[in-house]
């Protein structure tokens, strides 16, 4: 079987439809498990008290906001180099969820910052670069929506995505490059975790739930985009019959 055949919208449409319930179900299940770990099993933090439990939504959403942008940049490259139609559609399908994750990470960071730092917001490098990420998502959506020809819109959006990708390492390394109010990385591949095992488990399970949700939402949205774009083709017309 040739896996590249799924690069054709007609072949990808039913595959995406079959995957959505699995990823959606996995997201719901993992979110329940993650919340039980985070709110029932994880101990109260000796310094921050209960409020640290915001970490179980803040960190996964912040990670997803960055990761979704990287995936979109990958699709942007495919759009420009391979001229793959589905890549542009996938980038468009991911953008609203990426913006949502960025907004959730900013909001949850603000409500965590108020009781711990004494302020909702500071123009700190990590916070500011994440706000720029939200604007990049919104700018991308505005740009591709404003251009009537979808393929031209895809190419223009791809350029914006590739220019904006420089912001991702800035967000990630901001806490090392600058003296910021934001704490350092929560989890590192090179160092032992600094938090209790149950806290870490809750955070990782919630991150997995965010992954599954993102995939389900993007696949669901890309099916609508395929219908909108290919609505004059015979196979789409047969679907609506």
């Amino acid at each position, binding site marked *: 079987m040739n896996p590249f055949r799924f690069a054709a919208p007609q072949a990808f449409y039913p595959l995406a439809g079959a995957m959505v319930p699995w990823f959606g179900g996995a997201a719901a299940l993992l979110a329940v498990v993650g919340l039980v770990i985070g709110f029932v099993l994880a101990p109260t933090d000796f310094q921050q008290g209960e409020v640290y439990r915001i970490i179980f939504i803040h960190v996964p959403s912040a990670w997803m906001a960055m990761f979704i942008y990287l995936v979109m940049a990958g699709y942007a490259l495919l759009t420009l180099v391979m001229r793959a139609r589905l890549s542009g559609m996938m980038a468009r399908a991911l953008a609203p969820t990426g913006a949502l994750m960025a907004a959730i990470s900013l909001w949850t960071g603000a409500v965590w910052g108020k009781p711990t730092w004494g302020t909702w917001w500071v123009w700190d490098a990590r916070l500011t670069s994440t706000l720029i990420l939200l604007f990049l998502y919104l700018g991308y959506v505005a740009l591709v929506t404003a251009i009537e020809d979808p393929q031209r819109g895809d190419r223009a959006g791809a350029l914006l995505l590739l220019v904006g990708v420089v912001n991702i390492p800035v967000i990630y390394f901001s806490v090392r490059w600058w003296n910021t109010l934001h704490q350092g990385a929560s989890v590192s591949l090179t160092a032992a975790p600094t938090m209790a095992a149950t806290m870490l488990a809750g955070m990782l399970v919630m991150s997995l739930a965010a992954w599954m949700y993102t995939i389900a939402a993007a696949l669901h949205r890309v099916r609508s985009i395929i219908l909108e774009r290919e*609505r004059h083709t015979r196979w789409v017309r047969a679907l609506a019959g």
Partner: protein
Amino acid sequence: MTDPHWTYIALAYGFAAACLAIECVLLVRRRRAALARVARERHLDETDAD
């Protein structure tokens, strides 16, 4: 008195839940609209052909 920390936790998780719920509703509405558009245009084309 309720620990104020739980108010902040409720603000964080409430916002996230509302965002995700809105996204899910918009996803379903977009799909329905796309399917309805395909059906409408197909119907118009068939009417023209007659």
